[in-house]
């Protein structure tokens, strides 16, 4: 399977008469995008703004971030099974508006997630302070059930990204990244002496505001499944979860999964990257046992020597993480876990909600409880009052001068458990 990420480096976004790219500037016809999104009868109003790196802009509460792309060669288009017809993702050429993110905002339920500061102290904690953000606020019609509202916002973000991505269709890229591997049998024959490595990616799969989707299928409904990394890098996996911002994996982060990219970079040199197992995180104990057993079985069947496991979320998903680890280590497969820590404001408490003696190689993305104070913004996109209801915020978080105090878990992607973030931990 061969996929080209053809990156068109975007240096600015501006509103214009036509949605197009010229000389590295993305022009967006605001009314055109609004009209496109308002074709969904559940959406009453759409507001669109731009937030650039360095501007004193605060975006709150954030739902998702999505990279605008267009498929220029190969089957299908963006987000197969969701926006486009179901086709095999992972092959062909994709033009990417590199440096741009569509960021959706809007209240769904009374408690929220996600802040992005484009400058200063807040900016250093989130990777989305470095992207040129097209901020899309969705106001639904009255009386929508939360799950219908969530779906409307999720679809609007994806639709906006796909719509804008089309502006890159005819543009020559500034750089091209190629992701290619043959069948497992071919790769094993090619690199017989290199350790065979699988990546197990866990996805929250628990219900309203806690779901991930694969080709449009809610991951609650699957057994762990073997995926070629190119499928996710080509938009087969999207986020449908809206709770803790720090360790939420946005659609943008799935589209650019750094574990996959790093494994690709080492493929054929230090290791043999065989593929990805997507594993749902269910709420039932039987479900957890079934998926963890099944995940370990897939890794054993493929003959993995080593496995990297990344988590999504905190709480009962910690149990899945450690159950997978235990099963793999017991099978003689060396296992590395990527997670973040919820170890209290002083960092001294137990980091995960569960433990296992087999978890001896753990990469931490940082402590979600770390306290930060963010200075007042000049411009607020969204609702500043939402800080008191963010995970990581509380009543009294918002101070009189407009600054606020919060835990890192209020900041989008601050401690991403797939490693798409700026933060890490140090042992003293």
């Amino acid at each position, binding site marked *: 399977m061969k996929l080209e990420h053809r990156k068109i480096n975007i240096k600015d976004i501006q509103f214009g008469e036509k949605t197009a790219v010229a000389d590295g500037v993305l022009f967006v016809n605001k009314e055109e995008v609004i009209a496109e999104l308002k074709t969904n009868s559940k959406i009453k109003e759409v507001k669109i703004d731009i937030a650039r790196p360095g501007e004193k802009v605060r975006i709150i509460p954030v739902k998702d971030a999505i990279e605008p792309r267009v498929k220029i060669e190969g089957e299908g288009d963006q987000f197969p099974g969701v926006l486009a017809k179901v086709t095999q993702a992972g092959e062909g050429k994709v033009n990417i508006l590199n440096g741009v993110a569509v960021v959706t905002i809007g209240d769904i339920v009374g408690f929220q997630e996600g802040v992005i500061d484009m400058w200063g102290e807040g900016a250093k904690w989130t990777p989305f302070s470095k992207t040129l953000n097209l901020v899309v606020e969705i106001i639904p019609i009255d009386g929508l059930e939360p799950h219908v509202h969530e779906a409307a916002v999720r679809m609007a973000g994806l639709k906006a990204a796909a719509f804008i991505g089309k502006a890159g269709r005819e543009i020559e890229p500034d750089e091209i990244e190629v992701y290619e591997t043959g069948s497992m049998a071919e790769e094993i024959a090619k690199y017989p002496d290199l350790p065979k490595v699988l990546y197990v990616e866990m996805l929250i799969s628990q*219900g*309203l505001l806690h779901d991930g989707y694969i080709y449009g299928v809610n991951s609650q409904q699957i057994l762990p499944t073997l995926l070629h990394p190119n499928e996710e890098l080509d938009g087969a996996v999207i986020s449908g979860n809206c709770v803790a911002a720090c360790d939420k994996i946005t659609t943008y982060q799935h589209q650019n999964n750094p574990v996959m990219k790093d494994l690709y970079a080492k493929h054929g040199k230090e290791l043999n990257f065989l593929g990805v197992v997507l594993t749902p995180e269910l709420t039932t104990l039987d479900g957890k046992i079934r998926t963890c057993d099944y995940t370990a079985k897939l890794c054993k069947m493929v003959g993995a020597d080593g496995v990297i496991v990344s988590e999504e979320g905190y709480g009962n998903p910690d149990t899945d993480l450690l159950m997978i680890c235990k099963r793999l280590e017991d099978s003689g497969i060396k296992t590395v876990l990527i997670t973040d820590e919820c170890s209290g404001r002083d960092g001294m408490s137990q980091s995960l909600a569960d433990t296992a003696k087999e978890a001896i190689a753990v990469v931490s993305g940082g402590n979600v409880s770390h306290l930060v104070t963010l200075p007042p913004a000049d411009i607020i996109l969204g609702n500043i009052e939402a800080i008191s209801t963010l995970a990581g915020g509380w009543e009294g978080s918002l101070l009189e001068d407009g600054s606020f105090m919060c835990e890192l878990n209020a900041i989008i992607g601050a401690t991403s458990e797939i490693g798409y973030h700026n933060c890490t931990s140090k042992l003293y």
Partner: protein
Amino acid sequence: MGYLIVSNNPMVKEKFDNVYFIEGTSREVLEKVRDLVHEGFELMTHPLGASLRMMFSPCFSVVVKEKQGEFNYFHTEIIESSIEKYNQHMEVREEDVENSKDYAVVDYKLLESALGEINNNAMSF
């Protein structure tokens, strides 16, 4: 397969028959679940929230399997460590009662998903 929902969520009480309703906090729900597990009930859903945010929920529901007669050490360990983790969190935070209504909806929806999984499982027939 008989199961019991231990919950302090009024929406859950209203919609289901097999509910052991707790007039109290989420901590009290967890403590009741612990007592039941010690009596021989088994956990069907994990007694920790699905996310960090749900740890602050004033409404919480856990599904247990009706009394099995045998003490399950694995399930005892899960409920005991979950209560420990819950207490650790709530040392510095309070239940978010202001948004009780929304938490009730999310808890209900998460429960609905779990019951969907339980009821669709072939072993329940």
